[in-house]
């Protein structure tokens, strides 16, 4: 929430003065009946940061005072038409100190630049000023502005407030950004101020060739992007293919594909997971507690892992998807589960229960590949999509992939296939296989040839 917006102008002789403030009385005391009882902070204390020295102008300058964050973009326009050849102003936004302000910085910067060009083009700011205003303001200058509102000598502050375009601008921006997070304010025939508060996300983690993107939204239905790479890549994201494979199928350079996918990641359109293989090993994390004690997650899992659900293939589970909701049509298997009241009809079918899932998940362990696990639990896995079962656990964070790393104990001789440089314990088998384009079985065979190589599961 923006607490206040104010416009400060540096007067040639009188120094920094607040010309407009919304709400009234937020920055300097005002006697208008609707004004705030006391300013949010002491303007005098921060004035040097609102109109700073030359070298700190034309950049974002923020100062915190009295639990408020005061963000401005001081601008100095140099032109002979002004007195002393300079016109210095700052259009400042005030936020609560502990509000996340990343999104507002762009707004303040943009406003500063916009107002600069408006002033340069048509004296948008300066034409509202005349000597009277300054004379009126003058009366206050000698007063230490402080918080003693009673001392405020001018009854009609802001002196030219309500008719002023700049004041209107302050008002509208405050209202619209707080209410709608955006605003569109026509200035004149050729200028409009368009602002939007964009949420700022942290930069996405790097996307590697051996990651598997899983969509959390209907990527196909996303507004068509101008990014040609993205458009080519999206059809191949199915929750199974690795980035390398997608790049290959889409015939896109792997670096471009990674970049495109990291764009999707930035906007949380996808999540990343590992390459599902039957020789991979998965084990539980402490989050298994959430699954075992969470009937909702179990029900979601039941729906997600049931076979024959071809429709949502390659999609993340509904709760990972977040706001995106889709009514899963009960499949045959799910129907059994739901309709079990009518046991006379479907009695002999071995239905999948929550307890089955719990038993299956808790039986995954270190040193046990999915393949062997499947063999051990063949019966219980009837009607369950193993890949989705594993993926569900990984995405929910209660399973983790136990990656394998190889470490050559001796100095690796130069080898033609380039495997040697991967044997330092920093490259997972997934990575090596993807980079070298070999299967993990081939990799393991090659490692045997190397002799003294220690494989670590981590």
């Amino acid at each position, binding site marked *: 929430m923006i607490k206040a917006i104010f416009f400060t102008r540096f007067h040639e002789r009188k120094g920094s003065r607040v010309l407009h403030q919304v709400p009234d009385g937020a920055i300097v005391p005002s006697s208008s009946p609707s004004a705030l009882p006391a300013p949010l902070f002491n303007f005098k204390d921060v004035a040097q940061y609102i109109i700073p020295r030359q070298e700190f102008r034309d950049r974002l300058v923020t100062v915190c005072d009295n639990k408020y964050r005061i963000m401005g973009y001081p601008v100095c326009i140099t032109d002979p038409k002004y007195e002393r050849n300079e016109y210095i102003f700052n259009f400042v936004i005030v936020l609560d100190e502990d509000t996340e302000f*990343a999104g507002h910085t762009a707004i303040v910067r943009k406003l500063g630049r916009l107002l600069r060009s408006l002033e340069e083009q048509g004296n948008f700011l300066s034409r509202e000023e005349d000597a009277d205003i300054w004379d009126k303001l003058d009366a206050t200058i000698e007063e230490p502005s402080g*918080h003693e509102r009673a001392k405020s000598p001018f009854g009609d502050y802001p002196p030219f407030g309500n008719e002023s375009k700049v004041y209107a601008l302050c008002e509208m921006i405050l209202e619209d950004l707080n209410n709608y997070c955006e605003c569109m304010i026509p200035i004149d025939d050729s200028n409009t101020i368009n602002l939007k508060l964009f949420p700022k996300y942290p930069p996405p983690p*790097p996307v590697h060739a051996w990651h598997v993107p899983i969509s959390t939204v209907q990527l196909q239905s996303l507004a068509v992007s101008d990014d040609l790479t993205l458009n080519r890549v999206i059809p191949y994201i199915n929750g199974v293919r690795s980035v390398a494979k997608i790049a290959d199928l889409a015939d896109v350079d792997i670096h471009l594909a990674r970049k495109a996918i990291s764009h999707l990641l930035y906007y949380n359109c996808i999540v990343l997971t590992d390459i599902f293989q039957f020789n991979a090993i998965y084990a539980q994390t402490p989050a298994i507690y959430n699954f075992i004690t969470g009937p909702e997650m179990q029900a979601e899992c039941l729906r997600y892992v049931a076979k024959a659900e071809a429709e949502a293939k390659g999609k993340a589970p509904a709760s990972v998807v977040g706001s995106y909701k889709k009514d899963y049509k*009960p499949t045959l298997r799910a129907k059994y589960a739901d309709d079990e009241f009518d*046991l*006379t009809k479907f009695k002999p079918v071995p239905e999948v229960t929550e307890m089955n899932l719990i038993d299956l998940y808790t039986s995954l362990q*270190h040193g046990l590949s999915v393949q062997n696990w499947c063999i051990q639990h063949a019966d219980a896995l009837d009607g369950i999509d193993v890949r989705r079962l594993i993926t569900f656990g990984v995405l929910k964070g209660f399973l983790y992939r136990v990656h394998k790393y190889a470490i050559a104990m001796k100095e690796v001789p130069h080898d033609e296939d380039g495997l040697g440089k991967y044997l330092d314990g920093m490259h997972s088998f997934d990575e090596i296989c993807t980079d070298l384009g070999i299967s993990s079985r081939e990799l393991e065979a090659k490692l045997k040839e190397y002799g003294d190589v220690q494989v670590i599961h981590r």
Partner: protein
Amino acid sequence: MASLSWSISPTTFNHPPNPSLVAIILVAKSRAGPHFVFHYPPYPKSGSLPPSNPSWYGTTSTKGDTSSESSSGSSGSSDDEESGDRSSRAGSRVTSRGTSGKHEPGLRGTGLREYEDIDEVDREEEDFQEDGSRPLNGASRRPPENDWEEVLGYATGGLENLLCPQPGLNKRRFEVALDILIFLGSPRFVRDDGTWKKRRRRRWSGGNGNNELANVNHSENLDYEAADNQTRNSRISSMNEQDPTFVHPEGFEPGYGHGMLSEVASEAGSEPKSDSTGSMEDEMTLFNVLFVLDPPVNQHILRIKELYDNVAKKFSKALKHEQARSNYVWEECRKILALKAKAKENKTPMSILWPTIMFKSSLARSIAIIYDAISDSKIAHVNLNSSVDTSFQIPQAIFTPYAPTPIHPQQPGLWLTTANIVDDEDSISIMSPHSALLLLEDSEILLKEIESETRERSAPLAFFIRNLTPTKSLQKLSVTCSITMQDVQVLSNHLIYWRRARAIPPLNPRDTYIVSPNADMRALHNATRAFSIRFPSLPPLPKMLNMLSGQTRPFGQLMPSKDHRIAYMEILAWLMRGGWVTQLRTFAWLRIPAKVKKQVADNIEREERHRAKLATVQETNAGSDHAGHAGDEKSPSSLLTRLTLAENSENTDFQPRLTITSPLLRAYRSPNRPGSDTGSEASNVTTIPPLTEQKYPPSESDVSSSDWNRNNNFEYLRYKSFVRDSLIFSPTKANAEESAWIEHICGSFTDSELREMWPHLLQYLDGKHALEEIALREGVKRKRIARLVGLLREGNWLVVARHW
């Protein structure tokens, strides 16, 4: 554990430590004006740091460029401007200035000033510092004469003014940001009476304060000017020597007029003045240690708070204490400024000057130590004034329950565990007496360190450390060393806070350890070398880790013989210390099979009938009920009777009642249906389906049936839970129904010891307590517990999960 959300989402994801510290700057203000005293590192860099350490994500790093693109992508036409602006600050400054030497407005109309490098402003006005209109000094428009006169792209002459706040900001957090750089400080002002003992408080009287101060300074300044006159000439000459190309316009020599002006106006004048101008009488009115940060997006508030609370504020406080005691800060400032001035005269390069300053000034040294340690997320030990030894740190997570994922990395090497998560929040600070203490440094090193400094705690601490072993719980330690548990905890907490130790479950060869998913593989190379030096006759580190990979087994089984036990336990401690391994612990829940539920229900019902017979229908005395026709229509209803409902109501008015009965009752509706064999099912169908047949014929369509499910979801779940196996999540808080099941299960045990220990075991079967803890907590032999748990697992009474 219960209070901790396991779900992995950005909101619950803990930010890894990232101090984002770019530089530390010391500014001070004397009567003569502000001084940019010192900054460290000599050449701070900002923006080059990636938002978080890319090494956490994997082996190769791709630069995540998307954020910058998206942040500016919306600003349309201003894009170019921004990039231009950012790329060359100096350039834009020059262009925005346009022609130089213009008239600049002064504050209050006290007079116009010409200024081109040399200008004069009244002292009074400097205090207000409202005439931000001063153009760049010569020093920053040309390349600065000395390296140290430009920091982070700003001239120090400008920064010193910006960073000396108004007295209104005294005692408060000082935070100013220039673009992405945040200057965070805790300014300390001299008291009105000129002392530093008590901080004066001048929050909202700022306006008055300004005037007061201004007046004081104004008069002071006159004195100063007088004093200054004596040294002015020498200073001018020295300046001209340094910068022969620079010719001062007549009457505008840097030294002309008030002393402080020269400092602001020209870099050349600023440094010499502070020492050579006889400022010995000059007094400091303010000092401010600024921590410059550039935190990653969305972490500003977190990082600022972290640094301010733990370092900035505490350091300022310590400095103020020293200042009050012995004028320490100001003495040091003058020392540094003198060195700088001398270096300027002698044209000493910064590469020599900076080490000299740090050698001669303990304050500069302290700042450097703090910067180096804090920006590396370490602890800074600072000796400000021989007598005072202070430490600063941003406390860090010592463990994480989250395994790293491609999207949410963890700090590599951070200990992965849930062992430290305690159930009730308030007990977190109090260490469990059952945990052991693992020293993070070799005890010899620690002991040496402790003995070198004589402190009140040294002796007990040394004794404590000598007796510490990671295989023994603190409780045992307290007994064997006859130290009270309270003392043990105090000492332990001391070691833990200063990152010398970590509380862990005692290491035991019977426990299982795995290679931590969070192990820092980048450190493997060095660690392997260190390992082979430490344990020369034993297998190398990769081999050890390989043995801990794959199929899990108790650590003891890795030992080739009993003689290796001590060495292998040392290895284990070494591995734990480096975060290479973590204990794989076992968590269990009690499984209630449907069979048990049915039997319990039957028993209750039987009892019920029996009692009913005895009490009311004694005359019939038939006594044939025990045949147990549990499948009869009557049986569920009698059960209901026992709880609340009227007898025989079921078939007639069951439907409306259903909506109001509690789900608990519903659970008893069909106790015997699936549990009983196929034969009884027909009768069961009649008990439940009325509901579906009346309104929601199940065979109609998918939609309606799913509607039905939604409407009766809870009922349905209860029902399902009854006909199926289920788990008990908190056996200590079991309701009547669950208690009956648990009792029944206990009754089915044939092993007498198991039956005896059952109440003790039960409390650990909640998925939050590791089974490995039981022996320690109950004071029972591990073997015994292992056998009992084995029995339970054999009987398939447990659902067992294994994690750290």
